[in-house]
């Protein structure tokens, strides 16, 4: 496990041609990632989720992805053929999506869906794959793996579903995990549990993590570094520990807008947007 950069991105651009013109979802984004935790914070439409999907080659047609540089573990991701992407996805890079109600297949058993990731990348017998899946369910602190294995998505609570999703995406031991709003669909009480499980797993396995969220507070406490996105651009990049000293007015506004128990305000601060930020 070297300290060399896992992911290097330079001038990533994602555009969607449409009837009213071209929509530029991500504009000249550049960043790098080692085996550390990077948070991407932004509001809806800031381009953060699109960035995550572009990294996995999952921008649907007619979207166009260009970059001066986009490498993972030294491999150039630009223009990669499908067969190569299939080798990377699940095995070396993976993504946990927001809502397990929708991201788990309703008609397949949970256990089978988790096994599938393993069997796609490893030759194994049915029994081997199953025991791996059960072990993974234990790793995400699900109390009764044998029972949950046979359940269907709609029978799981939000927290359990998200943990099953994490199991599904980490079973093949990828080096990079992109978590796209992993706790946004969960009750607040369950959010911390899931975050803790994610924390443990990422640390134990020495993975790189990209944590995408609109919640600056969570990202600030969970990640090492933070990227702030607005209007498709990265407007600021800073260490999580130095958030209070943010320089860009948008970041500062975000920080001020977060409610705090220690310093309660009569009125919550609202972000005033400067059109200059879009340029």
């Amino acid at each position, binding site marked *: 496990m070297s300290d060399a950069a896992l992911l290097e991105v330079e001038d990533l651009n994602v555009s969607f041609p449409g009837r*009213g*013109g071209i*929509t530029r979802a991500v504009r000249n984004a550049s960043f790098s990632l080692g085996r550390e935790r990077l948070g991407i914070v932004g509001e809806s*439409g800031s*381009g953060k989720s699109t960035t995550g999907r572009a990294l996995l080659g999952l921008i649907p047609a007619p979207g166009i992805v260009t970059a001066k540089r986009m490498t993972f573990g030294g491999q150039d991701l630009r223009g990669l053929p499908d067969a190569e992407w299939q080798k990377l996805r699940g095995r070396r890079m993976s993504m946990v999506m927001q809502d397990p109600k929708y991201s788990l297949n309703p008609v397949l058993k949970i256990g089978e869906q988790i096994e599938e990731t393993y069997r796609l990348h490893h030759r194994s017998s049915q029994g081997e794959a199953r025991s791996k899946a059960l072990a993974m369910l234990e790793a995400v602190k699900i109390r009764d793996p044998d029972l949950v294995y046979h359940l269907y998505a709609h029978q799981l609570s939000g927290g359990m579903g998200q943990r099953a999703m994490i199991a599904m995406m980490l079973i093949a031991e990828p080096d990079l995990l992109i978590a796209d709003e992993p706790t946004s669909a969960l009750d607040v009480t369950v959010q911390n549990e899931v975050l803790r499980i994610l924390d443990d797993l990422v640390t134990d396995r020495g993975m790189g993590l990209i944590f995408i969220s609109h919640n600056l507070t969570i990202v600030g406490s969970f990640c090492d570094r933070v990227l702030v996105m607005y*209007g498709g651009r990265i407007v600021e990049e800073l260490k999580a520990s130095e958030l209070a000293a943010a320089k860009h007015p948008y970041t500062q506004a975000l920080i001020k807008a977060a409610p705090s128990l220690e310093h309660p305000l009569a009125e919550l601060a609202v972000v005033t947007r400067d059109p200059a930020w879009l340029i």
Partner: protein
Amino acid sequence: MTVETTSAPPAARLSLRGWLASDAPASRRQAVLGNVYRGFVALVSNRTALTGLVIVAALLGIAVFAPLVSGFRSPIDQSLSERLAAPGAAHWFGTDEFGRDIFARIAYGTRVTLTIVMLVSIVVAPIGLLVGTTAGYLGATAGRAGGIIDAVLMRITDIFLAFPRLVLALAFAGALGPGIENAVIAISLTAWPPFARIARAETVSIARSDFISAVVLQGASTARILFRHIVPLCLSSLIVRLTLDMAGIILTAAGLGFLGLGAQPPTPEWGAMVASGRNVIFEQWWVATIPGLAIFIVSLGFNLLGDGLRDVLDPKSS
């Protein structure tokens, strides 16, 4: 995200188009006409919908100007010396087994098709609206009694919805005798339920809204609420559905005509024309082929138009 448009918007002008497309209508009429204009533009910009519109417009045009279009030839005059003539200069589509000019018969046949379309619409839409809006409104606002009426009306609707259309129309026409009116009645019997369903769905979604409550507080009777306020809001979905169903209705009517149960000779009904050309299909193919092509084109036109209207008026259902 930023959106960069490819062209800058033109400066507003005090033209009719500007008035119609205005974002800030000054009167109710302007708003309504503006909506119609925008809908029309959207419809026309869709190529398939445009094709459908052209076909239906052509149907209307030919029906109205049939004598002109057919060069003042008669669709029913027989000329046995010229029977089964091939398409040519004298008779563009040839003649049938009685020597009647097929082109003229096709042209006048548009009137028959249009008559059936209009008659069925006139019967089916009001019944569907009446049943659907009553069921929906009473079911949503009149408590338990209303709920029972809703359930009963919907049961009746479901019963008619489950009937086989053609077979029932056959039995009907068989009993009451052939003819256009009986065909219309037979088809209408099974065609009205979808409209009741749509009307009810629309009604239920708006029955409890504030503006209806406001009208109730103003003292409006149930009848007034239904007709003046609810029915207009159902109209756009209904029109879409009617246009889409029209193709099926035309095909059923043509099927009845083919079996000899629709409009009777010498009225030029396309389905019957196909049937009459049946025996000579191997040699004089045009007698049966051309009327069938007309049915196909008109049906296609209504389907295309219906799809286009649905995209414009009711995008959530597409």
